[in-house]
């Protein structure tokens, strides 16, 4: 691979992967904080307000990192991917500009009010500020998903005489069917992260026998939300997203499943290591005919394998794509198991004494992050070798004027900077968890 291309791909992959660790919690927590604030208002219970304030502090720290690591994302379209920007700016410039104009202003204006204005506002007005932050963050997510969905399944465009693409239909762009499924699937994934983080901290407080009442609120909220959304993640959103891939990117589906030969009654690979050179899977654990059923709802349906497509259209990194996809699906299944069992215990009133389950919830914290990251890797690796599916190759989109050396310089800079930011984040969040939800009635500094 051309080394400048590799550096620019790593540059975007590294910065966006690190970035998305933060927005997923922002978007998930934004919803859960609205839930806590609503319960506080409904039940007139100060404990819920304290719980909301505690999560608002974590939210605030997390939000700052999401913002500062998000700014480079918008810039990189121009700095590292200028040929792509010139080619596609006439279309995706719409959604990226709308994100700035609609979502960022809403979010930033009301975040300050939400975090620092509780004393100046009535309880109901403060609730509204939480709702505005929630709307802003979810709206921002929509515009980004629409942008990515256009790259996965380009719609609503026309070719201009200079070779670039330009907007032909605004509504086709923002109502891309791919975007709807991807948005539902992605947002549900974000809520799962928020729910697991909340349940995990709750489990920690209950296990260590401090702030028990707050911990129980966190567990109740986290487990119920986690239970609902980990099921939604599989069905209908994951299923719908999968059928989008089957329909618009059949070669990607074959690569995700490592299905080298097309066949009727295709099996689903649960575990196994793809050997692309030999066109086979080592040590496979298969469910016969399941893939045919999941994709076409018929056990005997024919599923196209990689052999139906010319090799230059295969995603370049099939093993990584295959593992990303399988890690995502495997973890998603485990999440359902954890959350359904926890919800059952909660319903029977036994969760707070079931130390084994609390331990599982406590230790499960990193896994939604891994699953969400693996999901995005599946989407982005699966689109290769295309940058815009069927329209522009990744190899044609990077900034030809920015040499590999200059790209490497800033990539290393970002790696150093993000290491420091990551350490700082963990330190600050740990400090808030140590201080506990009852410590500060409001944000005192």
């Amino acid at each position, binding site marked *: 691979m051309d080394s400048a291309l590799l550096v620019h791909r790593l540059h975007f992959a590294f910065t966006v992967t690190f970035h998305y660790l933060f927005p997923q919690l922002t978007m998930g927590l934004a919803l859960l904080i609205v839930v806590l604030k609503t319960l506080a208002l409904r039940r007139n219970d100060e404990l819920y307000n304290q719980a909301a304030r505690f999560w608002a502090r974590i939210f605030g720290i997390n939000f700052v990192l999401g913002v500062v690591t998000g700014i480079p994302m918008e810039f990189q379209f121009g700095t590292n991917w*200028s040929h792509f920007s010139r080619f596609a*700016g006439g279309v995706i*410039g719409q959604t990226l*500009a709308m994100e700035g104009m609609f979502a960022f202003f809403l979010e930033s204006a009301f975040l300050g009010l939400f975090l620092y204005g509780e004393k100046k506002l009535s309880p109901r007005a403060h609730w509204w500020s939480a709702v505005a932050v929630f709307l802003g963050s979810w709206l921002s997510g929509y515009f980004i998903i629409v942008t990515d969905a256009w790259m996965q399944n380009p719609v609503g465009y026309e070719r201009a005489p200079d070779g670039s693409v330009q907007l032909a239909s605004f509504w086709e762009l923002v109502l891309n069917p791919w975007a709807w499924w991807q948005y539902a699937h992605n947002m549900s994934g974000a809520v799962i992260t928020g729910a697991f983080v909340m349940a995990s901290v709750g489990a920690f407080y209950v296990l260590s026998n401090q702030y028990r009442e707050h911990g129980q609120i966190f567990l109740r909220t986290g487990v119920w939300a986690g239970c609902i959304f980990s099921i939604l993640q599989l069905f209908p959103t994951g299923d719908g997203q999968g059928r989008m891939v089957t329909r618009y990117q059949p070669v990607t589906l074959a690569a995700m499943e490592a299905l080298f030969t097309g066949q009727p009654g295709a099996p689903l690979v649960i575990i196994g290591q793809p050997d692309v050179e030999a066109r086979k899977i080592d040590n496979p654990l298969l469910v016969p005919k399941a893939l045919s059923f999941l994709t076409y709802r018929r056990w005997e349906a024919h599923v196209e394998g990689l052999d139906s497509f010319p090799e230059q259209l295969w995603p370049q990194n099939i093993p990584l794509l295959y593992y990303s996809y399988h890690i995502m699906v495997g973890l998603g299944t485990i999440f359902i198991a954890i959350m359904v069992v926890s919800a059952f215990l909660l319903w029977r009133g036994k969760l707070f004494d079931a130390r084994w389950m609390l331990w599982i919830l406590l230790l499960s914290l990193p896994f939604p992050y891994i699953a969400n990251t693996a999901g995005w890797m599946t989407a982005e690796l699966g689109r290769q070798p295309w940058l815009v599916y069927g329209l522009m190759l990744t190899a044609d989109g990077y900034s030809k004027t920015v040499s590999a050396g200059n790209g490497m310089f800033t990539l290393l800079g970002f790696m150093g*900077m993000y290491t420091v930011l990551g350490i*700082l984040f963990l330190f600050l969040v740990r400090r808030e968890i140590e201080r506990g939800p009852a410590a500060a009635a409001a944000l005192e500094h």
Partner: protein
Amino acid sequence: METLWFMIVAVMVAAYVVLDGFDLGAGVICLFVARSSAERRMVLRAIGPVWDGNEVWLLAAGGTLYFAFPQLYASSFSGFYLPLMMVLWLLMLRGIGIEFRAHMDNPVWIGFFDAIFFVSSALLAIFLGAALGNVIRGVPLGPDGYFFEPLWTDFRVGAHPGILDWYTVMAGVIALVTLTAHGALYIVTKTEADLNLRARRVALVMWPIQALLTVISLMATNWIKPEVMDNYREHPIGLAIPLLVLASLGAMLWATLKRKEKPAFVASALYIVSMLVGAAFALYPVVLPASTDPGYSLTIYNSAAGHHGLVVGVTWWCIAFVLALAYFVFIFRMFRGKVRLEGSGY
């Protein structure tokens, strides 16, 4: 249509410089006017609820630029690769410096975050000025509409300049001085007692430097690029803009001396806007002049997005702009008046 979007982007850039300018300036003066940790907290609290929203104008302006002029966005962002990446790092450090200072208990670390806030604010002010200087001076565009500028070459203004040459360094210094005064005047409106007096003194010290540099920069621009006068010659009404620059400069001094705090800040904002409008007026319809061959320059016509997209954009942009203004009016009213230390917040 292209002209309309040129004006829209110019308005957004001006809004960014006026708004984020005062909190950048606050960062520059913070270490000097605020001596104790409590005073520094006052400065942070004066900008705390608004700085993030102010910075969104940069993102929104960037997004709008991408949308309306994709060719300009692609060319300038890849060409200014290194300085833009440094701007990103500075923006990150600054955001961290402002927001996480409050989470530190130890004075050693609080001092460290104050220093980060100062350094990143000052460097950002200089970078912004240098960036504007680059756009006015021109960049070595090739026939394909792309370029790559090293950070510096020989510091001379020629066909193949670096990001930094004597002209852009001067622009950086003007930006630093202007935003320092702007930030100081903002802090004057938001504080009382010692802090208020010291910030006012900074503004008074900056004034003669700012006035001198303004005159020098206008002459220098005219000297390195005589064609900046073309639009003014064609439409003499434009000459009102430099007059406005001088008038607002005078008003700044007068209002500061008379202790009219808000008018002084408004005059400073007016000075910034008229400087930027003057530059935009001189460039139009060019958006990125080529230092190599004037024929390679990017104009609003050869860098704009498709017509249909631009028409659609006007609708949603107007809605979003009105909403954004409403939020800003609401937030600034909410946190109006002088800041005091008791109570919640920064």
